[in-house]
């Protein structure tokens, strides 16, 4: 119970410090509250030290929701992800 509470607070802290808009913060908070609690842990691990990554996936989440089952739109999402990941890998491996 304590861990759940901690992760919930951490999610809130990360969202507050991320610089995301109110809408974006509400999007994450809403989706995470309805999902399995383990997702909050994954959220914290992924984004607590990397707000750039959070900003990218905020847009990614929105695009995925909007795409729904539209194959063409999802292909566009995948293309954007691939481009982003390639750039991140390039950066990290050159450091």
């Amino acid at each position, binding site marked *: 119970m304590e861990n759940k509470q901690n992760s919930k607070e951490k999610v809130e802290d990360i969202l507050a410090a991320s610089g995301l808009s109110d809408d974006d913060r509400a999007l*994450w908070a809403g*989706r*995470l509250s*309805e*999902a*399995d609690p*383990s*997702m909050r842990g*994954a*959220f914290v*691990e*992924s*984004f607590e030290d*990397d707000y750039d*990554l*959070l900003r*990218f*996936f905020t847009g*990614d*989440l929105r695009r*995925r*929701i909007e795409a*729904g*089952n*539209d*194959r063409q739109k*999802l292909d566009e999402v*995948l293309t954007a*992800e*691939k481009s982003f*990941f*390639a*750039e*991140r*890998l*390039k950066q*990290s*491996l*050159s450091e």
Partner: protein
Amino acid sequence: MGEKGTFRFELPQSSLDPNEISARESRGGESVGVVSERHETSSAVSPARTYLDGLHVLADCIPPDGNPGESADPKDSGTPKLSRLRQLFEGPQASRQSNILKGLLLSMVLSMPAALKSKDAEADVRLSVNIGNFSLGYGRIPNPGFRRYDGERMYVLQGRLDRQMYGLSRKFDTELSLILGQYRASRAKGVDGTECARRLIEDVSDVSSSCLQEFDAICRRNRDVPLTSGAERFYFRLESINRDPERLVRSILGKNDVSRNDPAPNISDDAEMREQHIDESEKKSSADGKSQTGSRIDNEKSKEPVRPVSLENLERELKGR
């Protein structure tokens, strides 16, 4: 709320086959079903499809020549995709790369309407990805829109994964494929099913023994071969076949009076063994670049027309005798 279970996805294969995805569902350690889709047969985009797409996206970012940031040819013949993924998640940047994948999974899972209704779902299934030492799970995805499959294709994938991760040769695939081809050719000629099954067990036992020796040799040469649960499962599946070939006969004949006292761990049921055999035979055809058509296996040795019969069907057939 339904019984708790696991729902595991695997990478389709080393070379890109965007049309094939599969997942295996198990409960209480026992396989209860396999979910599989052929993408071209459905316009719907499932969670599984989306999930696997994401893994492909990530893997495709790693070019086979190791120059990051350069576009990788999806059909490249370089380092297998799975191997590249493992490098990614086991290398010095593993933590950062894992975060990317976790973020990707979060985005995928949280964008699924079905996942949000999970608390009302009858089935409590678990989605997880396991690549190298990285894993992430997600609970309660009610898998709408999936169709159940007979298990063959999933084991093709699992077999490939095992082989790539633990360096097993294709010997096992090839030999077993030929054996099963003979088996089916014999059945097609009208040879008694029980006799066919007996021959099958003898041959399979030899092959699995050979494969075990190979696996042992690999472990001795490379003490850092990770004996993860996947490797152990593969190992003990083979060992179990070796130790108790009669079990497979009983399985094929549909007699479910198999003792559960087998000391080999991770052997959940006879179906798993049965499916593994189908899997291994399927691998040969896919390795040769042939189209995968579920249960059809070409018999290269006899070159005779072989009926597209799965062992599941054979079992039903034999039960009817």
